[in-house]
């Protein structure tokens, strides 16, 4: 089959690789009909996530048709149309049982490494480095899905792939980010980053009762998309940004702040230049500029919700401010399986059509170019979907 493989920083290629096989009794093989490139794939592309090996297949947002099931698979059957959540979950450990699926104990075969790094390991993830299990990803024509009875959701025919594909990651991720804000009717939520997760966070915040959403970015088409979602848009390059946020919130600050950017924050502010410098000589792993601002902007007693990915040790994070203001901080990988059914219902009801975020529809063959464009945010690129079997 054809698959998009990682070969190094800014070096991904479409290669011919062997087809996946059933390796465990709870596995299924999916013939992929639509897949996407996630903003977090760019952290791999830019070489910020350790534990990658040459030839690793990327991709954790995919859907398709079940073509083969292992002997212990009972819920899925051949021919089912499924969306596969990016977290691989066993469904039976303590964490799966308490609905914290992304923290699954049993699905990362390389848990020992993460345990040494972080003290514990969460769920294995598709196509997201050997730290998270080394599972082959879904930017391919076929994928092996472990614990196939647990994660994937069966989608009835009649609803287009593009409307349901993002249940795999970015829609639940934006939704969980908003849910983590514990929004009360009338709240003001500030969202940093108007990429796809930010876009879904904006819309989810409104769904959960926010009265106003402030969206912060710099890329015109993404700001426009946020505006269409009902947000009031601010430019992060504006030197008065923090003052403006205060003004717009009656001097108090937003009730909650969402960092939908993570470790690769951009911008020419002094602290970000400092992060760039330290990162370039490997003295720092992440550039937490947005997290710093989210903490500083948030109102007393508010919540900072972090769906953006961080990987290492962060520098100069104003923890004193977070403490003094009594902030709640919530973060982590998305408990995707928990949200599949409720969010699919919302799509059915017409609350949202997630395909609004797509800017590029390409063939898998074009994936390397797509990474390049998406990474540079060129060509008005917000979200790329790839068709694995298109010529």
């Amino acid at each position: 089959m054809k698959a998009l493989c990682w070969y190094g920083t800014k070096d991904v290629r479409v290669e011919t690789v062997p087809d996946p096989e059933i390796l465990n009794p709870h596995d299924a093989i999916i013939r992929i009909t639509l897949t996407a490139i996630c903003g977090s794939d760019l952290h791999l592309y830019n070489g910020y996530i350790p534990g990658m090996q040459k030839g690793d297949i990327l991709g954790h947002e995919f859907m398709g048709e079940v073509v083969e099931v292992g002997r212990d698979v009972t819920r899925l059957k051949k021919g089912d149309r499924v969306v596969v959540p990016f977290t691989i979950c066993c469904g039976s450990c303590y964490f799966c049982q308490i609905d914290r699926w992304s923290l699954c104990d049993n699905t990362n075969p390389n848990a020992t490494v993460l345990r040494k790094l972080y003290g514990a390991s969460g769920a294995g993830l598709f196509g997201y480095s050997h730290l998270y299990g080394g599972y082959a990803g879904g930017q391919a024509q076929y994928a092996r899905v472990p614990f196939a009875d647990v994660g994937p959701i069966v989608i009835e025919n009649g609803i287009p792939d593009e409307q349901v594909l993002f249940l795999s990651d970015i829609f639940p991720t934006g939704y969980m980010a908003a849910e983590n804000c514990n929004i009360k009717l009338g709240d003001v939520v500030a969202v940093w980053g108007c990429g796809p997760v930010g876009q879904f966070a904006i819309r989810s915040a409104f769904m959960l009762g926010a009265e106003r959403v402030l969206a912060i970015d710099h890329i015109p088409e993404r700001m426009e998309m946020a505006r269409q979602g009902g947000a009031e848009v601010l430019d992060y390059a504006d030197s008065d940004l923090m003052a403006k946020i205060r003004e717009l919130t009656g001097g108090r600050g937003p009730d909650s702040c969402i960092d939908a950017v993570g470790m690769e924050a951009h911008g020419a502010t002094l602290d970000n230049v400092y992060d760039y410098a330290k990162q370039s000589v490997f003295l720092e792993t992440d550039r937490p500029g947005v997290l710093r601002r989210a903490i500083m902007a948030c109102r007393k007693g508010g919540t900072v919700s972090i769906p953006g990915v961080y990987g290492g040790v962060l520098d100069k994070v104003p923890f004193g401010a977070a403490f003094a203001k009594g902030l709640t901080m919530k973060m982590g990988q998305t408990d995707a399986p928990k949200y599949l059914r409720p969010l699919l219902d919302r799509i059915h009801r017409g609350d949202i059509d997630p395909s609004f975020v797509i800017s590029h529809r390409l063939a898998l063959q074009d994936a390397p170019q797509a990474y390049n464009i998406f990474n540079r945010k060129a060509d008005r690129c917000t979200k790329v979907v790839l068709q694995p079997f298109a010529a």
Partner: protein
Amino acid sequence: MHLKYDPPAGLVGATLAKVFGRDAETEIETGLFRMKQILEAGEFATAEGQPKGPRIPYRQQRTNGQEQNMNQEVTA
């Protein structure tokens, strides 16, 4: 649980084993982790035997070892 640990080349071997994560502590931890997986989930998670791109990508082989970066083609 009984585990006999007798690394080749004595102390040197044991130190090397630790570097590569094959020391007794890691082996026991991995063994217990697999047992927990089988008890709870019915199998132990693995990515061994999954497809992977060739170590030397096809385009590079074809151009006789000369690096051909597709991304540069796009930006050019």
